[in-house]
């Protein structure tokens, strides 16, 4: 199992989670952060530091958020806008830098109230 960033992160991107991730697997999109499911080691360091409780263990995700949970994977497996290949497994967010674009789900998400 892995951890996932859910919709509460949209337009917030506090980034506290990035600082504590021991494997640097939390990547920055345009409006939201995404956890790389193939790089996450399931350590749970990120979950308690998120100020908007946007991070959850995949098995604990409420039904209303399943789409956003699954979308973490899409960020790495689908080809994002302006790119010609999926991100895949870059091996560390810090060396890649902010990606700057989002999945269609996040791009088109309503701004949080």
């Amino acid at each position, binding site marked *: 199992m892995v951890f996932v960033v859910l919709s509460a992160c949209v337009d917030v991107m506090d980034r506290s989670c990035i*600082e504590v991730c*021991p*494997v640097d697997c939390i990547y920055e999109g345009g409006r939201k952060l995404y956890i790389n499911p193939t790089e996450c080691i*399931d*350590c*749970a*360091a990120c979950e308690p530091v998120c100020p908007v409780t946007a991070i959850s263990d995949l098995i604990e995700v409420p039904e209303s958020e399943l789409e956003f949970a699954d979308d973490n994977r899409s960020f790495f497996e689908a080809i994002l806008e302006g790119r010609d290949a999926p991100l895949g497994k870059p091996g*560390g967010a810090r060396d890649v830098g902010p990606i700057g674009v989002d999945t269609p789900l996040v791009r088109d998400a309503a701004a949080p109230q």
Partner: protein
Amino acid sequence: MGSAPAKGDVRPSNRQNWSPNVRFAVVGAGPSGLYAADELVRRATAQVSVDVIDRLPAPYGLVRYGVAPDHLTIKSIVSTLRKILERDEVRLLGNIDVGRVVSADALARCYDAVIYATGAPLDKHLGIPGEELPGSHAARELVEWYSGHPDSYSDFVFDNTAVAIIGSGNVALDLARILVRPPEELTGTDIPDPVLRRLLDSEVREVHIVARRGPEAAKFTPKELRELVGLDRVSVAVEAADLPAEQQFDASRNVLANLAILRRQACAENSHERRVFFHFHARPIAVEGNVRVEGLRIERSRDVGNASETVIPVSHVFRAVGYAVGPIENLAFDPDRGLIPHERGRVAREDGGSPQYIVGWLKRGPSGVIGTNRADAVETVEAVLADLRAGALQAPVASFDKLLAELEIRPVTYAGWLGIDEAELERGQNLGRDRVKLHEWPDLLRVGLTNGKA
């Protein structure tokens, strides 16, 4: 991550002409030391070198010798940490016990700055009668035993059905899980073979977790608790009366999640032969026994003014009540607080010499998860680099390599470690497992000092 060729094989020769402007040493090759090494390389503007020195022939500290063997995904953090050791600027020097074979002063003379990342190597005690009986142990003894630590000379024979663990942190849950889960499930881990055989023969079927306070004060995390209650063929029991009434207080997310899991367990069936019992509000009073442990006397203090004593019959008592930091040569230690006073990782010298630096558990005390060390390393490294820019550091006046040669100390390099790594994989294959650890000094040194070409 399988993409680049194993650089460690070629790098030592590349380093022959390496002439950095600034030389750093990090003592301790666990996560906090390695994150510090990484930050030194990433943040320094000058050309730097970082020697990561460890007492043991193998790197990775508690990832190798603390994280439980069945936590394979957490152990995979090694693929991140190894990239730090494979940096051109970083060199691993294992098998060097700073403070014993090399003095802190001698080390300081060889570097612009030294960062200590040696963790919390001491055990807290309970101070109750019988604590020193055979069969009563610090958690660390069991952890080092099942982790294949080369300094572990313990041999645990579990020929009784019940054991007790005192404490309510993740270490307590680790011990409980390793002792209670069906041992066949551990064959996929790197656990040393003699340890696995002892666990396969173990008679333990009941693990009693004894916590002085209530579950709302427990330090373990929901993730670890969830894993324990989710074990196949193991029942986990807790008394409903030990749990606080619902929504009684404003608790943290972790506490609420723990309570939710424990509430479910309070109503769960206990149909399995293998069982874990949580005893909350239970104060350990004495370890009982004549020549060895026969029981743990506890005082149930749930109902104020109505305390009652009982003895849980057990053959072993493990105290998982915390690790502690100890004094280190040249670093002023505050015995009352059990810590080394520092300012953002900088430890001023009383004699006015160059400051030294600390990071990780040595700096913060034994708390936090592996990831906590990343932000912590940033803070310490920023302090080092600020002092470097301010001209507060003394340039090295001696060569560490020459010193080692004079003292006839042979370090285990990264290439040597790769040899150990390879030997462990090979040993695993021979036993039909992925990896089996080399757990004895002679084996580690024989392989590690011949650069893997044993």
